[in-house]
């Protein structure tokens, strides 16, 4: 279980997280909220990339904030929103780097690590990409590689910051299905940030709504992703429709166009 309490974080120009608190028991949790709500900052704080100014983060009862870099990264795997890889490493080399927390820095990875990296590629069915240069891959393939790297890292908690950004329609669903499989088949705890409420409804068990540095609502996806909540969150009039037992969010439209609420924020302001 992931537990976050009273988490605060500030950049030089102001507070980004203000007393964030939530807990994720199991499955996939999703951070949903407008740009600038603090989703990425929250994920980076949990990943250990940023150091929060106050608060607690616990994974299965152990405090992540009091751990060193290495210890924490054995428990938490993180795939960032943007690809930092600028040298054409092969896909296998990239996935092997996921073994870093388990590797002696002066010796580098051994056979056991290579085997685990290969198994991560096998689990995602992408062994055919192993020798390809990472930088030549499509956006969707790159995402899958980063998921494989997170898997090779063997964290109990997997963090994916906007894993669907810049992907086409098919790849968005492919990536989310793969992430869903990790939670369901491997029993991993997963936290993602998303922009599309429909994807949250389709793929996530728990949803946390974020606005202006706070988690303003949380619960089962179907309970939290409601028309009223979304309107308050994004300032857009929406309708929920049901197709074959699945719920979908569509924007409300009249003759004058989309119903964009100028005083967006509503009761969450």
């Amino acid at each position, binding site marked *: 279980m992931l537990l976050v309490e009273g988490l605060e974080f500030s950049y030089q120009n102001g507070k980004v997280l203000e007393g964030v608190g939530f807990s994720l028991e199991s499955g996939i949790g999703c951070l949903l909220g407008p740009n600038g709500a603090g989703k990425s900052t929250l994920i980076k704080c949990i990943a*250990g990339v940023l150091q929060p100014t106050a608060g607690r983060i616990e994974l299965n009862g152990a405090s992540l904030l009091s751990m060193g*870099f290495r*210890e924490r990264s054995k428990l938490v795997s*993180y795939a960032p929103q943007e690809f*930092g*890889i*600028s*040298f*054409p*490493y092969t896909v296998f080399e990239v996935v092997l780097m996921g073994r870093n927390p388990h590797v002696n820095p002066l010796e580098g990875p051994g056979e056991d690590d290579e085997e685990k990296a290969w198994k991560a590629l096998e689990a995602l069915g992408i062994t055919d990409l192993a020798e390809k240069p990472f930088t030549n891959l499509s956006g969707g393939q790159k995402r899958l590689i980063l998921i494989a790297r997170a898997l090779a890292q063997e964290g109990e908690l997997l963090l994916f910051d906007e894993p669907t950004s810049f992907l086409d329609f098919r790849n968005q669903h492919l990536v989310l299905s793969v992430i869903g499989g990790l939670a369901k088949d491997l029993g991993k705890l997963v936290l993602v940030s998303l922009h599309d409420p429909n994807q949250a409804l389709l793929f996530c068990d728990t949803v946390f709504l974020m606005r202006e540095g706070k988690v303003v609502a949380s619960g089962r996806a179907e309970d939290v992703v409601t028309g009223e909540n979304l309107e308050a969150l994004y300032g857009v009039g929406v309708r929920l429709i049901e197709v074959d037992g699945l719920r979908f969010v569509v924007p409300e439209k009249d003759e004058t166009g989309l119903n964009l609420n100028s005083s967006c924020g509503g009761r969450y302001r």
Partner: protein
Amino acid sequence: MKRYLLAYAVVFFLSLFVGRFTFSPLDMGEIEKTILLDVRLPRIVAASLLGASLSLAGLSFQNLFKNHLAGPNLLGVTSGAAFGAVLAILIFTFNPYLVQGLSFLFGLVAVLIAWKLSRLVGSGTVGLILAGIAVSAFFSALVGMAKYLADPYDKLPTIVFWLLGSFAGIRWTDIRFFSVPLVVSILGIILLRWPLNILSLGDEEAKGLGLNVPFYRRLIIGLAALGVSASTAIAGMISWVGLVSPHIARLLVGHDNRALVPASALVGASLLLICDDLARTLTPAELPLGVVTSLVGAPILVAILARRRYHVAR
């Protein structure tokens, strides 16, 4: 890797018998032995250590700053070391030990200033690059000022020749002290080749993968600066080797630093040896080493870039 070690050994061996004074390895008298062991061998050892060290510094900075065109002078080390040497020549009567000592010291001072300055700009790599550019420009300006002030008949030629770089007149005594920082720098970076892979992903991903980024970044910059300062102190400003050698090594072994680091060291050592062989044989008088490395390095870089473009175009 054995192939590249063998290639380097061949270059090393041939370099022993290249020069204005030619003789057969099978027929050597006392004079030939002295030339071989006391003149050519120290020079070849120095060229090997410097080539390897400059190449590894270039490779480290390329990885650390995610920039294919980074070279050993990125943080102003070479410019600082050059100023140290010029200062010694300007103020004192020419004393090689003083020149080398001040040069080494100012190389390290330059990187420390760059490090401290970067804190003003921001803690990340961008801050370091900007601070490095500023420090490099500052020390280059001081070198320019020193040249302007120097006595044009006595000190100015000494300064200019020193800045052009050379291994001429290198003896064992010159290498004895500086081989320590050079070897520490080379072995240190070879040991840290796996963390270098992780650092090349950028701060955010490296931290996510559990690397203590500030510690390893400081360590690798320190080791690189140690090597570059010692190199510049021994032989003056040698350009291009540190930039080009890692790129040649990438063509041979790929981008994974586990293989790339040792390969870059061997390529750098071989390339600088070949350049030095050319410097002492192309013309009756020795050519300045810095000029030869630039003449050789520039076309190699263009060839590599052209090859890469060809791959992309395909």
